[in-house]
């Protein structure tokens, strides 16, 4: 019991950034039908921006830096959508993938030119650097804060998708693009918006991981692949699915790390294989139409 609770909390905290990336990926897939490789690069840029703008370790400064990362990356993502993806949409998903991969290479390459090869680190924000005692076992404060941010973002996304008119339009487009367009929903405008939201989330996710890891170019793919796995396990296009999958996978990985160290790192891949054997469309995916978002 003494090791179980910290392992679970750190597992959830590990799953949150991946959920935040995956939710953007899955939203974009729902509307644009592109598995956006460039998302890993957006995430990396978010992390680098925090290392650049943040001086000292005040909590307020960290929050502002995270917001700045989100906004800059949102602008970057919007630019990519308008300049690249919108032109590629009609050419089919293969070409969309090629464009996304080209952007991934271009942006990660650019980060090397801007920020160099050396790994960079960020201090824990003041007040979040210790550990608190939860009825005995001790849990890192920053992990708890990350869990809080994750819940906040999940609720925010749920409200946005389920209870606003913009969310209704996003869901309509991912459900049936032709019909939604016939009803007067402007697909390209919603596409840009979804890209902006998705890349904002990627930027914030990048900011969230800065204190717990060292930031270099390999970060892009080391978080992108788990995010892809989470998107698939949750069901393509399903934000709740991504949330459940990210948290579950994070906890499983953390528990394996605590109890069966030789298998840690493989857990994502074992789970995705098992899930796809049982439910090829993912946990929350729809068999006929694998592109539904929050119902």
């Amino acid at each position: 019991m003494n090791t179980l609770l910290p392992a679970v909390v750190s597992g959830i905290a590990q799953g949150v950034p991946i959920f935040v990336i995956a939710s953007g990926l899955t939203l974009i897939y729902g509307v644009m039908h592109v598995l956006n490789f460039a998302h890993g690069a957006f995430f990396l840029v978010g992390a680098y921006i925090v290392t650049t703008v943040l001086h000292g370790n005040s909590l307020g400064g960290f929050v502002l830096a995270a917001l700045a990362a989100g906004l800059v990356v949102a602008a970057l993502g919007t630019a990519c959508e308008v300049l690249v993806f919108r032109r590629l949409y009609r050419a089919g998903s293969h070409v969309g993938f090629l464009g996304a991969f080209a952007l991934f290479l271009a942006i990660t390459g650019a980060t090397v030119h801007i920020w160099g090869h050396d790994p960079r680190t960020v201090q824990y924000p003041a007040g979040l650097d210790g550990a608190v005692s939860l009825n005995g076992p001790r849990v890192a404060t920053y992990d708890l804060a990350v869990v809080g941010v994750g819940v906040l973002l999940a609720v925010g996304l749920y409200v946005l998708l389920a209870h606003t008119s913009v969310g209704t339009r996003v869901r309509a487009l991912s459900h049936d693009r032709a019909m939604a367009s016939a009803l007067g929903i402007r697909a390209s405008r919603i596409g840009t918006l979804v890209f902006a939201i998705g890349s904002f989330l990627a930027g914030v996710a990048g900011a969230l991981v800065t204190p717990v890891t060292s930031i270099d170019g390999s970060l892009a793919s080391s978080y992108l692949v788990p995010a892809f796995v989470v998107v698939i396990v949750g069901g393509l296009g399903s934000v709740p699915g991504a949330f459940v999958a990210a948290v579950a996978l994070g906890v499983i990985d953390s528990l394996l790390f605590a109890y069966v160290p030789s298998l840690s790192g493989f857990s994502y891949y074992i789970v995705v294989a098992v899930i796809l054997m049982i439910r090829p469309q993912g946990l929350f995916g729809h068999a006929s139409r694998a592109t539904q978002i929050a119902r």
Partner: protein
Amino acid sequence: MPVSTRTRGWQLARTGGVHVLLGCAALALVVPMIATGTYVFTWTTAVIWALFAMATNVLFGWSGLLSFGQTAFFGLGGYTVALIHENRGNVDGLLLLAVAAVVAAVAGAAFSVIALRSTGAEFAVLTLVLAQVLWLLTNRVRALHGEDGIGGLYSITILGRELASDEQTWYTFVAIAAVCCWLLWMLHRSTLGAAMRAVRDDAHRAAALGIRVRRVQVLAFAIGSAFSAVAGGMLGLQQGVVSPTMLSLTISGQVLVACLVGGLRVFGGPVLGAVVLILAQQALSGVATDSTMFVGILLLVIVLVLPSGLTSLPGVLAAHLPALRRRARGPSPVTADPAPATAPKAGTETRS
């Protein structure tokens, strides 16, 4: 396809794949004339990549199976060659490559039987997962030596001769690649090749016509894996070392990019794409310390200007030249996209 060249002799040559062999022979002779020293080495890399891209295109372009994890079999080939060499020193290189091909074909068939339960993007991510699992294994299994990889592959002989110079390696590897290309061409012309294209275009209709869709897909995966493994083994022989980098995500992406840059629907497209990609990387690495950004930008330009690949260039030019002459500037491609009528196209692929 150019209509004017369709004479009887040309047709016969195409049926037997003679033009593929002639093309490879011409390449083998021309490159040492225009390239010297390290450039021959670069061209050898390009030929290996061309074979890898061709093998990937069996899945991607011919059968419509998007695999992000072709590096799994590329790496599997390399590591098979290296492991056998480490344990039994004097096995011939050709035999090593053949064993690598068989191992990868079996592994690919077994994997695809399971993974083909899902389709489209889910399938693609499953293949990505396979590559990542193998990558992790290189770090966890001690016999694979982690980051360092397995070295000392220079001493492998091919048909009893060591690959002493870059030129010798070049001729040997072009010969191996030529045989592989010829086999792939014969496959392309065969009924199995036609079945693959039918499955790609419409799996339901193909099934209705009596094609066993799953069997064709599994065969395509096994064949693509086998040739990827040969390419991986060749890269190991050429570099003298295999390392976990061979299994990285970047390599998976690059090989798909090579296919797409060249053009999926033309047999030689991936070859052109791979050669362009490798030569561009080489040229750009001389200009800047890190060429990734420039490769990315180059790709973006190709994607935006020629989304069907470089091999579509003659067709595009033929279509646009009259208009180009009339107006000084070329017709701008579609900028805003107000027509969602074509939208369901992308969605049809995930359905099955």
